[in-house]
């Protein structure tokens, strides 16, 4: 058998440019312009892969993005990272270095062990997984392993994607989707309007079906369809206001004419040509108007064994023949219910492929093409159907029988016809995917048996065959008229088109067979291996809604989204349930129209660009001094500074001890800082904090707790009164942005009468916090013009000073419980001030400490961290912080909620300290607390650990927790059950160290 099915010429290929590629390890030749599918067919290869469920041999069905069978694994340059699973062989253009492999088969595509599923197909019916793996639930883990192993088709790359991807935003006046005759006609009219136009098509070339149309049968202005398209494209290229993108698929159509498209830039190039170019670009398009010219998809016919390799769509056979110059077979049977397949028959006949027979389910046709076939002497079986096919790796034979008058059964003698390919046509389905995604409503056309756009929600029109208009003259006329109206640009249609007259289509959703339905394999969804009998089974089992039938049988799911599979399923459901198609409706066609790569979705937001990283002005010092960092929101904060390979535990213990015995230094620059000014600033603070602010003296600091209106603690921090009408508020690091937004919200919407102005100054200041018994001496050495005597500069107050003549603000405030000062200085001086403090503190043993030691130090003092001790369900009363809640103030955010029946409950979870029986035992944060230990769970959980440390200053383990009714449990024993032991704890006061606060003035 000759392996060369290539003709002398094809419109779309360049036979002077040979390209070698590999399929399943074998080197093959194709030409520039070939798709992988056309190149394989030219080499006589029809068997491409195995089906999803039954592992049946499958070949190429179509020539475009609707392809359900010919999915392959693509490998480029033997690079494991550059592999793509589930690529349609019909969409990939061949290039040097391209390697493709069959999927879902082992050991190989010709002999696949999984085909055994086909033998058991009677038990692998619809809903098999739902029915079989229900129980016992304990075995689910085992089931899952096998299901996952057998699921999926191709293999994902295991290495990082080396390619570059890009995103682009684009605004235009008119977006035209689809570059067939309708789209091109519309583009020419739109371009003449001078508006900004974008024309896209998913294929490498424009023209769609016209490119494979017959040269003799169709003439446009005395030109062949291909010549006409080329002429029009040339005309279009003269307009400067139109952007034309090929290899660009609109994936999704959202509200307000917002469309997502993926442009393939380099997949058709070899590595040499590609170099460092971007692989794919995701376009985010806003169009004032959208013209959908997405065309239509040919339907298969549903008969027993309609999935064998070699059985293809008639339009695809024509495209391979005329466009790629490839014969799909030498002995071809045409099977149709409409006239369009007759053109394929004539083209095949003219190019020396033998047309064995034309099987037509219709009684007759009044069209020109069947007449011509008759004249050419082609055998036509009217009112006949194929009842079965045979052949393993490729179709070898089809059996044909006559249809009864009402088409319900087959009658007469079975006729066997030898063939090596079948070209079938079940009519055309308008590609309404984008239209329905945009919110449009469909109606059913009973003449052409298809859904077509009825009512659009957006500024949009559908033209051409996606609108249910199928004749070329009608398409061009409709495009001309509707586009002219739509964009207010009157252009006369001067095209003169001659095309053959067509007879009517007749439709049978499920063709009758001489076998019982249960014995047939009539595929509806090739990709998901759903047969007609699966649909019937679902209906018998009580599924009525088409959405339920879809989910139960999986028809039209995955990447198909109603391209090939849906119409027959809908038709069979409508017929069986005696419902009108229009009333039944369709399933939802979900985006993306064709799959997007993750690379395109992510674009450039990878590695360091994945999220914003914020670093303090002192970051480089921390890095140089071996700090380990922790992520706090977007910030990188110094976590601890290990010395000489110290463990984290040892480093934190050392840092915490130094901060209490000598001096510690912390980078607190990340704390949120909000500058508050205005004549109502004091009143504003009164309203947002739980405590009173109007009596705070200038140059004094005060700690404040901020609640939500539900009474729950939201944020906390120290605010300093800089002047009569000027405050600086600090917030938690993580809460800075949300606090700012919340305050702005209240000012703008609830209290517009207040004269208050907020400015976020977090990044404007660097904050260096120095604590410990030697801190005062260090500050005295570093700053100028400040008197540090307790009398002049007491705890919770503020002074302005300078460092080398640079102004700074010094607050005497403490989160560690030690004597402590915070220097705030213009951010760019941060590191030099830090270094000055280090130099000045050297003689006192100053030790940099990170966030972990800071947390430990504040836990020793029982200070809360919002978000750690609180979780949005904790009130200040729960925290035993009644002292900070003003009784006198008329109102503040959250006040009223504090005495709702639930928040006033006595037995809420309260904030307490916990001490372990064994002082060396460190509790696990997040662990649950019980009052009574049972042999096994469930036990009544009365709270959980919020913070836990080993305190080097107290030489014992300490923990903070929230415990139900905790206030009344002081001194009581509780238990913390862990996986392998139960830890006994005693409830204590949350303040473990220096309850009197004497160290603040040490």
């Amino acid at each position, binding site marked *: 058998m000759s392996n060369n099915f290539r003709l002398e010429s094809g419109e779309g290929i360049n036979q002077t440019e040979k390209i070698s590629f590999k399929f399943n390890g074998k080197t093959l030749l194709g030409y520039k312009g070939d798709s992988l599918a056309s190149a394989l067919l030219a080499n006589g290869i029809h068997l491409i892969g195995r089906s999803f469920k039954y592992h049946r041999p499958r070949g190429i069905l179509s020539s475009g993005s609707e392809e359900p069978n010919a999915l392959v694994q693509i490998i480029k340059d033997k690079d494991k990272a550059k592999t793509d699973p589930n690529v349609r062989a019909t969409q990939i253009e061949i290039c040097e270095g391209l390697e493709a492999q069959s999927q879902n088969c082992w050991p190989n595509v010709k002999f696949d062990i999984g085909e055994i599923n086909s033998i058991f197909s009677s038990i692998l019916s619809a809903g098999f997984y739902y029915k079989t793996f229900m129980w016992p639930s304990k075995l689910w883990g085992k089931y899952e392993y096998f299901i996952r192993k057998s699921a999926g088709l191709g293999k994902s790359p295991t290495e990082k994607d080396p390619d570059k991807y890009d995103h682009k935003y684009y605004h235009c006046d008119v977006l035209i989707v689809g570059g067939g005759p309708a789209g091109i006609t519309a583009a020419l009219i739109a371009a003449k309007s001078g508006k900004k136009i974008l024309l896209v098509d998913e294929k490498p070339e424009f023209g769609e079906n016209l490119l494979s149309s017959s040269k003799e049968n169709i003439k446009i202005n005395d030109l062949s369809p291909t010549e006409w398209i080329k002429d029009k494209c040339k005309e279009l290229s003269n307009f400067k206001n139109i952007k034309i993108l090929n290899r660009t698929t609109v994936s999704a159509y*959202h*509200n*307000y004419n*917002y469309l997502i498209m993926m442009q393939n830039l380099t997949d058709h190039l070899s590595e040499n040509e590609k170099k460092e170019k971007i692989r794919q670009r995701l376009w985010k398009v*806003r169009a004032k108007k959208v013209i959908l010219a997405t065309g239509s998809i040919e339907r298969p016919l549903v008969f027993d064994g309609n999935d064998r390799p070699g059985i293809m769509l008639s339009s695809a056979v024509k495209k391979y023949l005329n466009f790629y110059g490839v014969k799909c077979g030498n002995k071809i049977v045409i099977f149709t219910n409409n006239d369009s397949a007759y053109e394929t028959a004539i083209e095949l006949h003219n190019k020396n492929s033998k047309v064995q027979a034309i099987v037509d389910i219709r009684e007759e046709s009044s069209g020109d093409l069947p007449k011509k076939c008759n004249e050419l002497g082609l055998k036509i079986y009217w009112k006949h159907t194929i009842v079965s096919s045979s052949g393993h790796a490729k179709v070898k034979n089809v059996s044909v029988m006559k249809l009864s008058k009402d088409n319900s059964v087959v009658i007469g003698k079975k006729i066997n016809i030898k063939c090596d390919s079948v070209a079938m046509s079940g009519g055309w389905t308008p590609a309404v995917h984008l239209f329905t995604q945009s*919110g449009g409503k469909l109606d059913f056309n009973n003449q052409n048996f298809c859904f077509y756009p009825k009512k659009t*929600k957006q500024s949009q029109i559908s033209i051409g065959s996606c609108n249910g208009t199928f004749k070329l003259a009608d398409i061009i006329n409709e495009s001309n008229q509707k586009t002219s109206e739509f964009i207010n640009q009157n252009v006369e249609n001067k095209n003169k088109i001659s095309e053959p007259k067509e007879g009517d289509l007749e439709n049978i959703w499920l063709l009758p067979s001489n076998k019982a339905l249960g014995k047939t394999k009539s595929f509806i969804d090739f990709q998901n291996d759903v047969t007609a009998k699966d649909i019937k089974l679902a209906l018998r089992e009580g599924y009525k809604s088409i959405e339920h039938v879809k989910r139960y049988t999986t028809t039209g799911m995955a990447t198909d989204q109603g391209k090939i599979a849906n119409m027959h399923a809908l038709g069979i459901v409508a017929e069986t349930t005696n419902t009108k198609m229009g009333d039944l409706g369709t399933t939802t066609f979900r985006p993306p129209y064709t799959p997007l790569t993750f690379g395109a979705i992510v674009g450039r937001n990878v590695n360091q660009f994945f999220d914003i990283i914020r670093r303090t002005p002192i970051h480089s010092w921390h890095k140089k001094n071996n700090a380990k960092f922790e992520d706090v929101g977007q910030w990188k904060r110094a976590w601890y500074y290990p010395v000489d390979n110290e463990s984290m535990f040892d480093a934190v213990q050392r840092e915490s001890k130094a901060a209490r015995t000598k001096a510690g230094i912390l980078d607190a620059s990340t704390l949120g800082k909000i500058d508050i000014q205005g004549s109502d600033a004091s009143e504003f603070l009164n309203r947002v904090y739980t405590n009173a602010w109007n009596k705070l003296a200038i140059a004094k600091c005060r700690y404040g707790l901020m609640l939500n*209106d*539900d009474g729950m603690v939201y944020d906390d921090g120290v605010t300093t009164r800089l002047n009569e009408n000027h405050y600086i508020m600090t917030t938690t690091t993580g809460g800075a942005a949300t606090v700012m*937004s919340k305050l*702005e*919200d209240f000012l*703008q*919407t*609830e209290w*517009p009468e207040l004269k208050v102005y907020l400015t976020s100054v977090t990044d404007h200041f660097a904050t260096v916090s120095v604590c410990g018994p030697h801190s005062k001496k260090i500050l005295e050495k570093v700053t100028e013009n400040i008197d540090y005597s307790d009398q002049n500069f007491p705890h919770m107050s503020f002074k302005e000073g300078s460092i080398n003549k640079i102004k700074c603000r010094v607050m005497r405030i403490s989160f560690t419980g030690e004597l402590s000062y915070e220097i705030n200085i213009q951010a760019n001086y941060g590191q030099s001030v830090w270094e000055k403090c280090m130099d000045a503190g050297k003689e006192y043993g100053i030790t940099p400490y990170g966030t972990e030691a800071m947390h430990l130090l504040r836990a020793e003092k029982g200070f809360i961290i919002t978000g750690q001790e609180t979780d949005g369900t904790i009130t200040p009363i729960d925290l035993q912080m009644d002292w900070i809640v003003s009784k006198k103030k*008329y*109102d503040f955010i959250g*006040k*009223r*909620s504090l005495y*709702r*029946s639930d928040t006033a409950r006595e037995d809420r979870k309260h904030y307490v300290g916990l001490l372990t029986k064994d002082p060396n035992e460190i509790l696990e944060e997040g662990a649950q607390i019980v009052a009574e230990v049972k042999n096994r769970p469930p036990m009544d959980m009365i709270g959980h650990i919020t913070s836990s440390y080993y305190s080097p200053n107290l030489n014992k383990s300490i923990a903070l927790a929230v415990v139900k009714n905790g206030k009344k449990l002081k001194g009581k024993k509780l238990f913390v059950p862990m996986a392998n032991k139960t830890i006994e704890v005693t409830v204590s006061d949350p303040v473990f160290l220096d309850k009197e606060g004497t160290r603040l003035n040490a």
Partner: protein
Amino acid sequence: MFIIKCPYCGERDHSEFSYGGEAHINRPKKPTELTDDQWAEYLFMRKNIKGIHYERWNHSHGCRRWFNMARDTSKDKIHSVYKIGEKPPV
């Protein structure tokens, strides 16, 4: 994805804005005089309307101003936008 006409900046992409819940729920002037039920009504109860819904939006990645929007939830279409303090248009 809407195009939202910020009353201060003009038409901008949806991604510049954040949603802020139902509009025209004024914080009670005298919360202490309310019963638990009345306070809960303000605090928790929100409408779920099919049709025109009045809601708060913030031009969070723009001018940071709050404004109100009347949106038809059944069509997911913006009816109109208006400034804080202005009367709803329909």
